[in-house]
């Protein structure tokens, strides 16, 4: 167990900077989600911690020990791969026991620990199966059991749920969280699915073009994204550009977003109200309703404001009074305005 720290990591592939001076601490026992679009460097960062990628400069510290010069097989890590990478020539029990086998753990002890690990992932009865006889979710569990049975100092997950279908993925998210809590292992996982990151992590880090743009607890980052990229990448956001004034942000159509200090304001789609009459609130503007999308309990409105597309999500019963198309008022509570820099 232990804290994992990276300091000033740089990795270049030719002219491309996969990691550009990344420093980050992954707290002991925490569940840390690395998030970013493809090519943002999140997988490179994970592989640098694992040891598959040698950084050009910078340090990787696992449990207090610098490991830049330690090969993968001696780093005491557990890793779950995107395709699970189960050994097809071995049974489930042999797969899980492989890490113990190479550590020369004796037969009886090994069998007991394999059984415990399989029990933890609720696959105690499938030890004699071969990987190709398992379903996707079961393979995922075997990969988990195999990664944790050696009691590694850190668990690394590379898009562990991306190969599963939606319903199974939600089940496995809960399962993953339960297992991680039960053994209390420092866990770092990479995903491009922001919802998954928000659900699972105690802390998230957002990468873009090899740089860490933002990190912190999911709610804090969601509520205060600080820049347009994070606001748009984590959840959805309507962005308003304008000129800052003493009282707030003046928009192109003359409307004023009160109290906004930045040059851009972001408002989450779920925080905007749509009405036909002009509301009695400070933050309001006129837009044109283009389309309503029915989505069961929640509905989505697509609107046009000054040539830009806006999105509002609301309860279906609140949206029923609105016409299919036409001019409407948008308004929101001042506390829901997110000021962004740049």
């Amino acid at each position, binding site marked *: 167990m232990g804290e994992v720290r990276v300091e000033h990591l740089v990795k270049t592939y030719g002219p491309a900077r996969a990691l550009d001076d990344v420093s980050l601490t992954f707290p002991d026992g925490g569940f840390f989600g690395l998030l970013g679009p493809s090519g943002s460097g999140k997988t490179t960062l994970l592989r640098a911690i*694992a040891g598959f990628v040698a950084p050009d400069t910078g340090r990787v510290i696992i449990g207090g020990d610098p490991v830049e010069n330690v090969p993968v097989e001696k780093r005491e890590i557990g890793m779950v791969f995107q395709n699970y990478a189960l050994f097809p020539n071995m049974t489930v029990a042999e797969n899980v026991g492989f890490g113990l086998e190479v550590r020369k753990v004796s037969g009886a002890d090994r069998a007991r620990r394999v059984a415990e690990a399989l029990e933890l992932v609720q696959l105690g009865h499938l030890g004699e199966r071969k990987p190709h006889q398992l379903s996707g979710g079961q393979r995922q569990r075997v990969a988990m059991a195999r990664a944790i049975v050696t009691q590694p100092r850190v668990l690394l997950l590379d898009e562990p749920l991306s190969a599963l279908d939606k319903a199974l993925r939600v089940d496995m998210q809960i399962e993953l969280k339960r297992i991680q809590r039960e053994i209390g292992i420092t866990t770092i996982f990479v995903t491009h699915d922001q919802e998954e990151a928000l659900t699972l992590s105690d802390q998230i880090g957002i990468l873009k073009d090899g740089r860490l743009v933002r990190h912190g607890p999911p709610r804090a980052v969601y509520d205060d994204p600080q820049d347009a990229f994070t606001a748009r990448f984590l959840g959805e956001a309507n962005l308003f550009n304008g000129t800052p004034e003493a009282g707030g942000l003046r928009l192109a159509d003359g409307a004023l977003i009160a109290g906004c200090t930045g040059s851009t304001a972001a408002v989450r789609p779920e925080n905007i109200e749509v009405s036909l009459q002009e509301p009695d609130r400070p933050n309001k503007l006129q837009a044109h309703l283009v389309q309503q999308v029915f989505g069961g309990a929640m509905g989505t409105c697509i609107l046009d404001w000054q040539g830009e597309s806006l999105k509002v999500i609301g309860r279906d019963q609140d949206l029923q009074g609105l016409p299919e198309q036409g001019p409407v008022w948008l308004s929101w509570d001042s506390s829901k305005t997110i000021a962004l820099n740049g």
Partner: protein
Amino acid sequence: MSSLSARQDRIRAFTLLSPAYLWLTVAVFLPLSAMVFFSFLSDVPFGDREWHGTLENYQEFFQTSTYATLLWKSLKLGLMVTGISVLIGFPCAYVLAKVIKGRSREALFLLVILPFWSNSLVRIFSWAIVLRGNGVLDFAANAVLPWDVRINLMFSPTAIVIGLVHSYLPYVILTSYLALQAIDDSLIEAARSLGAKRRTILTRLILPLAAPGILAGAVLIFVPVVGSFMEPRLLGGRRGTYYGTVIEDQFVAVFNWPLGAALSFILLAVVLVILGAFSPVLRRART
């Protein structure tokens, strides 16, 4: 409707398969049947020669120990050439499949395939030039080494093995390469993350997973080498008498086709028995 489309499928399959099977019938089955027929005759049924049905040709194999000794010698040669080819070919395939990336892989692959593109006689005679006394190898060794060396490998079993390995090495490289290519790199990474060293990864993961490919290559080499006659004759000289050369003699020199045919079918039977004995291993390796 469905029975109609099923019938159409059958017709389509038959149309696609028939050229290949027609060819196999004409080119393999008919000549082979003729040879089976010949092997039970007392003499070739050409011209006005006298002939009658007999088992003598098969009996001859068992009456003198010469044939059995030569067959054993050929089987040993087959094992040796196969073994050496696997030992050289597998590491080569591993490097091609797992170490080298990009365009240099294509170039190196071309070098592997090259023996296939050259005429086998040319290949053998060029080895003769290299291996004989005062040959290229002798000359090169003397140019490099300060003391006087005499290398004359020509007309020795070593020369035969060198020539055969050179001819058949590409088979095991190609089949191993394909098997190794199919092994996902993430499996190797997973094993490393679990603490496995290179040696363990090789013995527990790569060799078991590549076994079907290695075995397929071994079979492709073993079978023709046991029956080979050109390399033993040209590179082995007087000592190059093997089972294959004896069969060739029956057809070309002695003109005793029935005996040659009988010896061929005994070889075929022995090879099939050996492959049959190995088939459980082959089947296990596949799953």
